[in-house]
């Protein structure tokens, strides 16, 4: 099935059709990335662009790369972005007005200049030959050819890159790890602290967020027996980010004393 799809892609017109549909879309998506306010939206648009590129790779007989692009790059790296976005604040949007005076006009003119010149250069650049195409090279399959090349000519680069990956991983861990100054309180410490702290109000533990309330999200504080919100039930980071939703609407109204 795959080969069929690939062969279909090879012929002249379907590739052009593919290109003329997906190309502009990718460019629009990229432009969208610039103009959209919310970071999440631009992340999504970037994912879209990456998928288009993957398709282009496959269209250009780079099947292995296309798959890797989808699986590794878009799959892992983009997801990492979203994960970090989650941490930093999904809805953190920054206003598009420019703070540094004079930066935007220069940037735009520079970009136009750059793009214009690149395009005109590419237009004028004579490649000297029509595209040779990878048919004969991928004779026994793109992956095998790539592997042969990778482990013959570029084996040294391959080893170095692997070392780089390991160091990157270690580096990220070191960077993101923050050393706890006070030791992590054990269960025993927490319970003695609950009972030793002046009032026993919270000795029996506090209601978890979302309990007794109509909204079970993690950012809505739980209710105390007397109906007021237990602020300590929402995690510190959410409170710091100010994402805690007002629990008033979810509180039970005090029922009139019928009996």
């Amino acid at each position, binding site marked *: 099935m795959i080969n069929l799809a690939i062969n279909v892609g090879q012929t002249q017109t379907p590739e052009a059709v593919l290109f003329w549909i997906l190309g502009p879309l990718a460019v629009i998506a990229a432009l969208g990335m610039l103009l959209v306010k919310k970071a999440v939206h631009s992340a999504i648009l970037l994912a879209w662009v990456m998928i288009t590129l993957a398709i282009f790779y496959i269209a250009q007989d780079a099947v292995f790369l296309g798959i890797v692009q989808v699986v590794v790059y878009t799959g892992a790296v983009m997801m990492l972005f979203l994960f970090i976005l989650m941490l930093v604040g999904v809805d953190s949007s920054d206003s598009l007005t420019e703070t*540094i005076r004079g*930066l935007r006009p*220069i*940037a735009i003119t*520079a*970009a136009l*200049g*750059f793009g214009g*010149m*690149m395009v*005109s*250069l590419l237009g*004028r650049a004579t490649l000297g030959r029509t595209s040779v195409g990878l048919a004969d090279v991928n004779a026994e399959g793109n992956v095998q050819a790539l592997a042969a090349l990778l482990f013959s000519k570029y084996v040294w680069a391959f080893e170095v890159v692997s070392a780089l990956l390991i160091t990157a991983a270690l580096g990220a861990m070191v960077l993101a790890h923050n050393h706890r100054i006070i030791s992590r309180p054990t269960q025993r410490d927490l319970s003695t602290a609950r009972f030793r702290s002046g009032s026993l109000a919270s000795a029996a533990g506090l209601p978890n967020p979302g309990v007794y309330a109509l909204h079970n999200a993690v950012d809505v504080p739980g209710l105390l027996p007397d109906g007021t919100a237990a602020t300590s039930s929402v995690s510190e980071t959410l409170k710091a980010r100010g994402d805690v939703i007002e629990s008033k609407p979810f509180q039970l109204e005090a029922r009139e004393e019928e009996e």
Partner: protein
Amino acid sequence: MTSQSLVYLVALPLFGSALLLLGGKRTNRWGHLFATAISASAFGVGLYQFSVMLGQPDSQRALTQKLFSWISVGTFQVDAGLMVDQLSICFVLLITGVGTLIHIYSIAYMSHDLDRRRFFAYLNFFIAAMLLLVLGDSYLNLYVGWEGVGLASYLLIGFWNQKPTYATAAKKAFVANRVGDMGLSLAIMIAFATLGTVSFAGVKEHAGQASTGALTAIGIMLLVAATGKSAQFPLQAWLGDAMAGPTPVSALIHAATMVTAGVYLITRSNFIFDAAPTAQLAVAIIGAITLLFGAVIGMAKDDIKKALAASTMSQIGYMVLGAGLGPAGYAFAIMHLLTHGFFKAGMFLGAGSVMHGMNDEVNMRRFGGLRKFMPITFATFGLGYLAIIGVPPFAGFYSKDKIIEVAFNAGGIKGITLGAAALLGAAITAFYMTRVVILTFAGNKRWDEKAHPHESPILMWAPMVLLAVGSVASGFLFTRGDALRNWLAPVVEPMPVHEAELMSPAVVSILALALVVVGVGLAIIKYFLSEVPVVAPTDVTVFTRAARRDLMQDDFNEAVFMRPGQAITRGLVKTDVAVIDGAVRAVARLARGSGNVLRTTQTGFVRSYAMWIFLGAVGLVAAIWMVTL
């Protein structure tokens, strides 16, 4: 004919002055006597040389002594050589003779001065320098003596330099001399460039082949040097102020010896001037102008020393005029120089003794009637006076009239103008000299209270008497059988006296005497018969006022040279600091300024750095784009 003793003439006084200067306090007691002995011994050596020369036949009289090769670079060979010939022996005897007399005179005159040792050291140094000047066998040796004498006059004029005016006078004298020296060094350079040698013999030998243009240039430059040293017309402003020095100095340097160095230079380079008629004419003209210039100033000066200084300037004008009249005039110029040496030095010493008596009063309007109080001084001064105005039996008559006669005989309008100027000069000389004598010795007393004039001690009047004898007899001795002319003949090759002279000697003499009588009469009327005011009258003609201010020579010099010079200096100092140094400081400011400008690009925002990177990329692409255009 070489001689081994010439060097002592210069070495002795040099050694004397060095010993006194370096000796310091220890030599105070006998310092002055030692110096006088040295000067006398120099005179002795001079006489010995003279006697040796007398023994030689006419042509080989010149004695030379080569000490060592002073400077020898490529073709520029100068030996430290000394030469005495007929011309320089006259000077040697004059310098050492009059010098010794003045040393004796100074013993008494400077007796109360606590720096006497230093004074005698300077006098000896002067004698040494002057002897080197006249004994040098090349223009460069002469130049060393020339500047040495300038330094000596600077030291002696500024002897009492604790008074600022005297120090300024000394500086003025040295700078004026230096301007003249510039002329002399240029002359030497032209001589070397055209003739390849600077020794007198060498220049004389090659003078024939050189172009008249070069010779005229050398002549003019020598004239500039002469005017500088002998205080002739353009550079004469310093002589009046030079009277700031002690009177023996004025007598020795500014009457007898140094100021005549210019005449010696012109006479010594007669071969150049004879071959460059225009230069010779210039010399005569300068002589005539200074002659009148000095005489006019002499009439208006109340300070006795300044009056005598002005008269010296005018008498030297005569000598330069004589020297400028070609071979005929050289002998008479030298004769007048020698006789002037006697009577002018005598008169200066007389003035010195008058000042000594009147506790250093110089204003003649404060003298009067000193005849009875200082008989010897009056007598010697009188004899000198008679000699200078040219009364027949005395020395002045013989030498000055001859110059006037030669001036007339120069022929043509040149002869007449120069002769007339000389005659007029003679008349004016008679007038102001009589004025000096009358104001000082005749008439009624105009002294201020403290003055109690007395005759000066023997050590002072003895030299004056000797000089007086000299001023009486010397004229007669020199002209008896043309002794001096024949003596100088080998040096100056006199032309045969051509008959077609404008006036016979007798006519000239009568004419001169008549004018002298007129001058004397006028002076007697003005100063002897009428009352002489103690304070100089102010309502006087513009000529007298001008003459009192030295015919505006100082104002002219200050307006043309000094003030513009100071302005240039101040301007250059300002521009140097502002422009050239400013340029250097501007470079420094530029560096710091550009540093500030670039600093503003560090905004701290990551995005602006990103922009710079992106602009770099754009620049790169643009370059590629243009290259592949």
